């Protein structure tokens, strides 16, 4: 295992608060181990800044296992950096070369305002979920697991949609800052299962309305979201959401 042999130049977006205008600031880092995660490299930077009496860089992180969806960071023009199917915490410095300059920016979307530095407010996603991304169930004993037969293929597709961790990389990379990959995954994980059927057409209308309300853009099917999604959420979900939306609006008589 090699340790501490990379010298890097970081260009990091520094922004004091929501209302101030930020700018890219250069930082030199030396003796970075290729085995560090990208966030650990930021920990090193922040320790240096604290020791110098400067403000550390604010960035979101939580589990550092690639499953919570907190870490964001737009690294060298791509959300979660250059590697496929990873979050920023699972990106390692060996994916970069000694002497590289790395540009790090926050997610950029009107619906994701910057809180400070690299941290953005993603509560727009929470409001979309609250609009309908749930199933209403009666309290009481849980039913027998095999009560509702579910074909394997459907269960798998629902599970794949449910893998979405809500990190917002789809919005960040989309040229239109569209949230359709996220919203369609959250709709699909329920629409594919029997438990999601009673509220299926109400759900799609409410969640799409909330998505529009939040100011996300419109999908132009470039496929950038699918390519950058750390969980490999498929564009098939967007097509399913559109189908359900048309059924809800043009066929179903249920108003929302």
């Amino acid at each position: 295992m090699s340790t501490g042999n990379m010298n890097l130049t970081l260009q990091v977006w520094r922004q004091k608060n929501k209302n101030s205008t930020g700018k890219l600031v250069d930082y030199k880092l030396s003796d970075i181990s290729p085995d560090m995660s990208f966030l650990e490299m930021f920990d090193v930077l922040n320790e240096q800044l604290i020791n110098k009496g400067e403000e550390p860089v604010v960035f979101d992180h939580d589990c550092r296992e690639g499953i919570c969806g907190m870490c964001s960071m737009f690294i060298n023009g791509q959300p979660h950096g250059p590697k496929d199917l990873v979050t920023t915490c699972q990106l390692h410095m060996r994916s970069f070369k000694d002497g590289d300059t790395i540009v790090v920016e926050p997610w950029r979307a009107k619906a994701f305002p910057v809180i400070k530095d690299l941290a953005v407010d993603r509560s727009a996603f929470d409001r979309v979920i609250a609009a309908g991304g749930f199933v209403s169930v009666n309290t009481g004993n849980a039913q027998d697991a095999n009560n509702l037969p579910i074909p394997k293929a459907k269960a798998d597709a629902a599970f794949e949609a449910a893998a979405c961790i809500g990190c917002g990389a789809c919005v960040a990379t989309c040229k239109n800052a569209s949230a359709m990959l996220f919203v369609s995954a959250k709709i699909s994980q329920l629409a594919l299962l029997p438990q999601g059927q009673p509220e299926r057409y109400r759900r799609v209308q409410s969640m799409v309305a909330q998505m529009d309300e939040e100011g996300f853009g419109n999908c132009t099917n470039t496929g950038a979201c699918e390519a950058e999604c750390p969980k490999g959420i498929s564009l098939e979900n967007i097509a399913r959401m559109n189908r359900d939306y048309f059924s809800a609006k043009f066929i179903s008589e249920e108003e929302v």
Partner: protein
Amino acid sequence: MSSLSKAFTSSIGRKFVMGLTGLFLISFLIVHVSINALIFLNDGGETFNVAADFMGHNIVIRIMEVGLFAGIILHIVQAITLTAQNNAARPQKYAYNKASANSKWYSRSMGLLGTLILMFLILHLYHFWWPTKVAVYTHQEHNTFQNIVMIFQELWVVVIYVLGVISLGYHLLHGFQSSFQTMGWNHKKWTPVVKTIGVWFSIIVPIIFALMPISIYLGWIS
């Protein structure tokens, strides 16, 4: 606003109109390229002129022509609205965005390609649609084939037409399969078929169109 009208002004609703009008315009291209390909019979435009006269005078076709213009206008209006919304969705741009890593340039340039096609279309209508209309309403004889041969004598016209159909080709390369996806027609078995047909359609149709001004300019057809 009623639920139904909301269906057309929501993000997905506008995309629905985009996709539907796109597919409609694709169906028009099939008719257009088929009829115009009659000039390749190289019979002095005899067969072609019969078809062109039919298209210019038949009442059903003329009503459909109104629908065609409505389709084009709806497609453009929705595109402008959607683009304005999309630009507003990201007020602050990235300093460094490596979009080429995750999407094709033409899928990100549909607005630019569409604008080029529109500019070409205006010239195209002035060249061919307008004289036909004038002839119909002034009850004059109009030799469409002669008009084509006359217009394609200029090199700059030929170059603009070729550039116009190249723009169309790239617009279709994304638009063909994209419209199916927007309509919700994504299917494990059928989507690969749609994508393959889309690619061939986007290559073959513009090539046939481009060959028309080229062949006339080079005197292969007269």
